[in-house]
């Protein structure tokens, strides 16, 4: 891997990884720090990897979990709520309420449920890729995602009822 290949990889995956890390850490600065460390590890690793996407997500997850353990605290997503306007979001006015509900619902999910929702529905990772990132079987991921989806729907049920 040369510098140009490294740059290409950063450009390709930085937004996906940042989004995942932001929703898992609940903090922009922390997300950026973890993202930077992830790419540094990728650079130092040097050798080409079979699936860079899964590799990077796995390393990013390990880095953020390690930092989280060091601080020995639960991830607090208060900062997400405290952000009235988040850059990168283009929310149409008529969808604002739905988006707000989904954001609240996502925030209130347990970490392992929120994680699979982000990886599958926001970032479009396949079941096999998610299984590789989390070190679980595909069957476990499928059932966890179903459970997470149901939990999220439960939190949105009022809105969904109005939508129908």
């Amino acid at each position, binding site marked *: 891997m040369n510098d140009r290949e490294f740059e290409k990889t950063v450009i390709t995956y930085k937004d996906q990884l*940042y989004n995942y890390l932001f929703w898992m850490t609940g903090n922009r600065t922390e*997300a*950026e720090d973890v993202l*930077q460390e992830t790419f540094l590890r990728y650079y130092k690793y040097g050798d080409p990897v079979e699936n860079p996407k899964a590799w990077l997500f796995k390393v990013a997850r390990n880095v953020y979990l390690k930092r989280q353990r060091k601080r020995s605290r639960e991830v607090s997503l208060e900062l997400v709520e405290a952000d009235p306007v988040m850059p990168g979001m283009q929310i149409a006015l008529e969808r604002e309420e*739905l988006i707000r509900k989904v954001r609240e619902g996502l925030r209130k999910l347990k970490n392992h449920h929120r994680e699979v929702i982000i990886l*599958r529905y926001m970032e*479009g990772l396949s079941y096999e890729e998610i299984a590789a990132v989390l070190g679980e079987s595909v069957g476990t991921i499928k059932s966890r995602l179903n459970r997470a989806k149901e939990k999220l729907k439960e939190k949105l049920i009022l809105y969904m009822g109005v939508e129908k």
Partner: protein
Amino acid sequence: MKEEKARELIEKHLLGEASPEEERELFALLEASPELREEKEEMETLIGALRELRMKAPPGFLSRVKGSIPRKTRYLSFVERELKYAVLAASILLMIAAGIFGLLYRGSQTNEVTEIKQEPRKGYIMQIEPRENGGIYFFTVSEDNSM
């Protein structure tokens, strides 16, 4: 089971992973089931909303990550990347060359003993048995029964 399959197809369709055959299968199922159509709409709304919540890496991130790579790491990475295979090949060649040289050197040895640095102790004799095809000698030390 059928519902599970239908849900899987809906998800694949919404994430753009469904094959043309799966698309046809899904639309046949949707046509036959108002509940499935409702579920598809719900999922479409949910995934659409989730995707609108996606965050982007801050501007200038690429420059920052490049700037954070220590120079030493950059140099070492270059050496590791570009030269490690050359060093490996050179090492293998060196080992092969040393092996060949060793064989040739061994074959060129004569069976003559040029020097014995240490005499056996009194009461013992030393027998020398040269090998026919090599330069290695066997020294057998035994008690001298003639004394």
